């Protein structure tokens, strides 16, 4: 009986320790590691109202249709990138016009 109790107590302790370890992040589900995401250090609170990735489809939706939609959304942002670059170029090339009177 005594040894049985010891076994039970040991198992309970192990379960508790495992739970603490998991809670503290020492035990993580191993999954695809290639695209492990790291939370950016500065995130605007407004991103809480949209999916964190910014994609129009759910992060778990890997269907062909979803990826077509996601690609289109990325293309729109790339177009915006071109516009931003042009605005930056313009702001750096701004020259004062000479004044004469």
């Amino acid at each position: 009986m005594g040894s049985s109790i010891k076994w039970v107590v040991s198992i309970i302790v192990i379960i508790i320790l495992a739970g603490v370890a998991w809670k503290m992040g020492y035990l993580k589900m191993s999954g695809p590691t290639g695209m492990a995401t790291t939370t950016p250090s500065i995130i605007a609170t407004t991103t809480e109202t949209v999916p964190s990735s910014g994609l129009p489809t759910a992060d778990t939706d890997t269907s062909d249709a979803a990826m077509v939609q996601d690609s289109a959304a990325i293309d729109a942002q790339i177009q915006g990138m071109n516009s931003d670059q042009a605005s930056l170029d313009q702001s750096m090339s701004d020259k004062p016009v000479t004044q004469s009177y």
Partner: protein
Amino acid sequence: MSNQNVMKRVGVMVAGAAVLVPAFALAQVQAQTNVDVTAQAQTPAATTAAQTNVSATVATPAMKAAIAKADQEIDRRIAALNDLIGRIGQMTRVSATLKQGLTSNTQGQITALTTLKAKIDAGTDLATLKTDVQSVTSSYRTFALVAPQGRVSASADRVANVTIMMQALGAKLQLRLQAAQTAGNDVTAAAAALNDLGANLSDANTRAQAAINGIAPLTPDNGDATVKATNDKAFKTAQADLKTAQSDLVTGRKDIDVIIKALSTMHAAAAATTTTQTQ
């Protein structure tokens, strides 16, 4: 190539394509409401003897022309700054603190220019007008900092946004490739594209961060040639970094196309994966 090696390659996509756009403390630009007569003038000394003989209380045609031209310059800069404020409001990957700092500096410039314009428009004294018009040039030195500083931040924010979107899509593609490989498809080429995507995202992120870091501590040169040279160099470096980041993302987008095209030839495996995920 063995399935095991391919799986390793699929799993080794560069991680950490995270965006770190710090809430840097922008140099608070003082709204220039006072005329700065000591600023390095970039306007030619075009005052003629004839003009000095004109009554100082009457706006001569030359003065009116100078006022009109000054107004034109001020309006142009105010329009650019208002456009910048609109763009700052669209930024999504930076902190509220950073956005607030950028908006505050930009709005401060608009206020200063608006005040200066009113002063110029109301002026009838030639000497005062000359000083005020020179202020358009001196205030330009702050515009020359605030405008590109805001634009670099906006560009970096956009790069961050695209990076995160591509990272998320890359994760989806990785799952699809793993499933396709499990189903017996050869994913070698697609896996290589996936790795390339990861590398490009990582570099884009690094470049965007460097751009922000480079322009964050800059201050208005106020006519100081040395400070101006430092600022110009920093902005040129940031501009180059952002162009490289953009190029990285364009290349990454092509990698995505390669992978999606490859997956389309593995339709049976993809359909099975989709079915599994919807259960």
